[in-house]
């Protein structure tokens, strides 16, 4: 079986050939790995990678916030993984079919405290664009990419629901 696997933005084609029970040969980047895999608990996956001196690693594979996304954790870190090229992170990348346009959306219900940009402004990736108060904290929402502010859809004081488009970056 072959899968397209996107780990935190980098996509690889991976082939898995099931062998004896719990044994798999996984080919990544043209390199074959013999792996023994066992489930451990509801989300755990215990791997012993045979070709790397029986390296034993435990990972957790849990469903992510959006359909098709997995959150894979190991050693205290968690990365989003998408199998077979489904859209990563719903909402923030929903551009309504117009390439190159991205929306900054409210991740949770809250109230707009400040708008840091105006239409026509040039913004850098990760530059703050709107401050929303939620969970008793002021949160600065950042631009997902560098570009130009196309639209500011809210004003200070606006109450917003999760998923509401706040600013559109082009």
């Amino acid at each position: 079986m072959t899968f397209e696997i996107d780990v935190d933005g980098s996509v690889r084609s991976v082939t898995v050939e099931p062998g004896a029970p719990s044994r798999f040969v996984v080919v990544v980047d043209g390199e074959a790995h013999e792996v023994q895999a066992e489930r451990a608990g509801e989300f755990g996956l215990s791997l012993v990678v045979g070709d790397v001196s029986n390296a034993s690693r435990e990972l957790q594979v849990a469903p992510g916030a959006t359909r098709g996304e997995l959150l894979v954790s190991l050693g205290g870190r968690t990365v989003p993984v998408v199998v077979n090229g489904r859209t990563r992170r719903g909402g923030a990348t929903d551009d309504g079919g117009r390439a190159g346009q991205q929306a900054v959306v409210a991740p949770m219900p809250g109230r707009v405290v400040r708008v840091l940009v105006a239409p026509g402004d040039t913004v850098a990736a990760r530059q703050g664009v709107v401050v929303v108060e939620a969970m008793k904290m002021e949160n600065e929402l950042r631009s997902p990419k560098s570009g130009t502010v196309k639209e500011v859809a809210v004003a200070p004081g606006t109450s917003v629901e999760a998923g509401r488009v706040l600013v559109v970056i082009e």
Partner: protein
Amino acid sequence: MKILIANRGEIAVRVIRACRELGLPTVAVYSDCDRTARHVREAHEAFHLGPNEAARSYLNIEAILDVARRSGTEAVHPGYGFLAENAAFARACRDAGLTFIGPSPEVIATMGSKTGARAVAIRAGVPVVPGTEQPFEPAASDDEIGRAAGAIGYPLVVKAVAGGGGKGMRVVEEPGDLLAAIRTARSEAGAAFGDASVYLERRLIRPRHIEIQLLGDRFGTIVPFVERECSIQRRHQKVVEESPSMSVSPALRQRIAAAAASVARTVGYTNAGTIEFLLDEDGSFYFLEMNTRLQVEHPVTEMVTGLDLVHWQIRIARGERLDIDPVRALTPLGHALECRIYAEDPDQGFMPAPGLIRALRPASGPGIRDDGGVDAGFEVPVYYDSMIAKLIAWGGSRPEAIARMSRALEEYQVLGIRTTIPFFAWLMRQPAYRDGQYDTTWLDRLMAERRGESFNELDAADTRLVTIAAAIAACLNARAAVPAPVAGDGLSESLWQRAARLEALR
């Protein structure tokens, strides 16, 4: 003595644990979304308070007193946050014949005003950071404010009289920014505390935040404890606390502790409280404020002294004499650290990340203490502070404590929501942190230097491993999904359940 815990989350669980250890019955209160919260399930009795909004539940004094009456409660523990430093609540408890586990309402009111607390410190002969002794009148002229600021000198800090947690606080580097800073501080303070008054304080250049825990009984005994170092702050909020401080010698410890005890004695303090100081580079220290409650970071003090502060809060409240050996309280054994684990995404500017916790395995093992407030299956609500646990590590030395913390952070598993765990793992690796070369401005400066790198960054080998794991998971899922009519469903929530069902059928 039946104790009502007027709080939620980890601190409610912490207090319930102490009560159970002392053989005391406990009463939990909860809002709509907290019905299945851990503190509700661990208490002996549980009463619904009201809707999710804190103002209508955990901040609703009438509703809490009503539960106290109905449950036959004798004492109320306020935890921290919510009503913990609300003098009106302490007074209402007293008027209702309940024992408030904390200082008197009069002391809470005096020390809750930052300018009032400064006046107490000055009376106690303890140095305060130079600043205005009275808050500005709302009608104070720009001229008057400018003159006061000029007398203190720049840089300075605008602070809310009722402040806390960095709210209503603004740093002003030069005179031109003063009036705008006062305006924003007033509006923030008005919204957060219902009191818009602000005052000015000189800003020390690279101070450390050092605080002294203390206990006071009803007989006038005050016992100060070994200091806590809380200089690791992100935007004025503590993120890591430790005890003892690397920058406090035993001689300095004696002097700071004596100053703290003097402030507490001057105001007639009872129960647990903490006095915060700024320690300047030259070793001089200044009174900052007093917290008239149990602190979030109290466990690090417990770990290095072996004393249980919550036990003592309860014992003092029921009239017992404080008979702790003062030398023991001031002599740390080993070193302790605490990381505050929040449901926040450090890769998105520490945005709150509420949601369903699908699985949870806290760290444990030698030297590790997990003060948790949630369980798997609980949905972290959007209505309250997003802290889900405090992870505390103890070691015989600071490097050993850091090594244990790093190990525990790797062990800690929280699935379903983003947390600050990867941020702490990164922090523990920073050379300046390991060397103890930091002040209250260090973390913000270090964060500003970051160029958007993820705290969850994987190296090539780990990326390959995650890819392999995802491919195997997909393969298992494809096999398990054979009977499913919908093709190309991909991986879904039911992956493991389906695999498990298949397993059971074998």
